């Protein structure tokens, strides 16, 4: 079932076309990987879905979520959906979390705003969410601050915040790039599990084809603002149809030794 459909998306910024017409369909319970070099427009695509494009950017095309075109929405309507129906996890948890607000405050704020929960309900749900992302001692963690946690734990908290209002769509922009490989493995397993259990539609943006190959169900490869290839994981990774995808795969150090 398609949850989020991006059709003919274009983004223009300062007279330059950063995204030149891409189509993506995110399905419930599936991880859709978006790969490509830096500057290919991966992050812009994610930001366009959230309505967080930089000032002066002009999007075109449609992004439909449950029958509504997100690009045509008034800012006030978009604010209602951002954080509630669509969640986002950013690259660096040390900058995406507020250093001076407690974890509990950062988790309960979106729930109180979007779901109109009272303080106690929100706190209960927050503890439950922290348990779900496997933070030890969730009750105690609510009163602590981001600097009390390691990088991997912070990213788990950032994921919990993104999931606070039961979104249908989760945009994860390089969620493991700032982490150690051992921690990355844990976060990838968590993302995969959440996607399967909650039926989330996940858009995973990463340049790491290893990460892509381990969690994505469908892979799209982007270059210069266009999609060069979209297909099931095994096909894209093993028998890429596009020469650019093949070049990306051939550039991997592990490729030479099967």
């Amino acid at each position, binding site marked *: 079932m398609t949850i989020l459909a991006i059709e003919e998306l274009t983004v223009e910024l300062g007279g330059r076309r950063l995204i030149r017409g891409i189509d993506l369909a995110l399905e419930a319970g599936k991880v859709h990987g978006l790969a490509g*070099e*830096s500057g290919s427009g991966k992050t812009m695509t994610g930001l366009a879905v959230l309505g967080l494009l930089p000032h002066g950017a002009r999007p075109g095309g449609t992004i439909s979520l449950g029958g509504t075109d997100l690009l045509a929405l008034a800012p006030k309507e978009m604010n209602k959906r951002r954080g509630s129906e669509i969640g986002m996890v950013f690259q660096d948890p040390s900058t995406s979390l507020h250093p001076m607000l407690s974890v509990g405050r950062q988790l309960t704020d979106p729930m109180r705003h979007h779901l109109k929960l009272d303080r106690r309900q929100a706190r209960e749900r927050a503890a439950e969410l922290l348990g779900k992302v496997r933070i030890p001692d969730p009750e105690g963690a609510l009163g602590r601050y981001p600097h009390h946690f*390691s*990088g*991997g*734990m912070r990213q788990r908290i950032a994921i919990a915040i993104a999931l606070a209002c039961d979104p249908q769509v989760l945009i994860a922009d390089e969620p493991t790039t700032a982490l*150690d*490989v*051992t*921690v*990355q*493995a*844990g976060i*990838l*397993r968590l993302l*995969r599990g959440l996607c399967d259990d909650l039926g989330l539609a996940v858009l995973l943006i990463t*340049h*790491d*084809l*290893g*990460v*892509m*190959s*381990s*969690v994505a*169900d469908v892979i799209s490869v982007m270059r210069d603002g266009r999609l060069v290839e979209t297909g099931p*994981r*095994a*096909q*894209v*990774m*093993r028998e890429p149809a596009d020469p650019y995808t093949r070049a990306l*795969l051939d*550039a*991997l*150090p*592990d*490729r030479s030794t099967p």
Partner: protein
Amino acid sequence: MTLLSVEDLVVDHRTPGRPPVRAVAGASLTVEAGEVVGLVGESGCGKSTLARAICGITAPTAGSVAFEDRPVRPLGLRRRDPELTRIQMVFQDPYASLNPRRRVGRQIADGIRDDATPGELLERVGLDAEVAGRYPHEFSGGQRQRIAIARALAARPSLLIGDEPISALDASAQAQVAGLMRSLAVESGAGLLFISHDLSVVRLIADRIAVMYLGKIVETGRTAEVWDDPKHPYTRALLAAIPAPDGSGTLPAELPGDVPNPAAPPSGCRFHPRCPSAMDVCSTREPVPLDGVSCWLYDTAGSAAE
């Protein structure tokens, strides 16, 4: 003569009012001339502190660092012994390690030992000689790191240390810069100590790999051997955590738990609380390195003596 030999180095970070944190707890390492040694480990394991102690930026608490059989003294107020300036370092973040208010050519010229010009050095790292008149902000991250490398090469180093020199760069620039450092070091016959948490890059450029965990080096060996047949359970866990780009959809193996607090390290082997093959002896006695591996699994005589 060994180019660099580090023996039982201990470095404590002291903060007033807190117990000292032992960032490096007895690490030994050697680098030969013309050899590329990769130092890998999770963040917080003491890799960077070890590098800073080798350069003399941080004073060691115990142990010794010898460069060409002469001790490396910590930096003081006086001018450094010119012989020791042949250890040069490339730092992690080229946005912070270059002075934003000086032209890059002038910054490179600071370290020049012979009659080389900044332009020549820039050409050696793959940039145009004309860019010497520009300021750091006019370059991309990968180019800045090349400039930082050119600055380090100006002093004709016989030991080059890269402290996570690629982690602040874009993925596309990482492999290039790492390869450049290797070829420049090997060409000039210098040794290179390359510190990174990215094993796949280290594997490409290093002759030998040293794996560090919580202030200690747990395994060293030739790159191919460590990669194909990792001995220490920590090395195995590290390698198993790298996702393979094979399209099979296998999730990488997770290493449970976090790196323990170095201010209160576990007793015995420092890895035992997270180790899948921990035995009784592991929690009580610390293993000694045997053939480059510090693990009781391979020291059967030692563990039987318990």
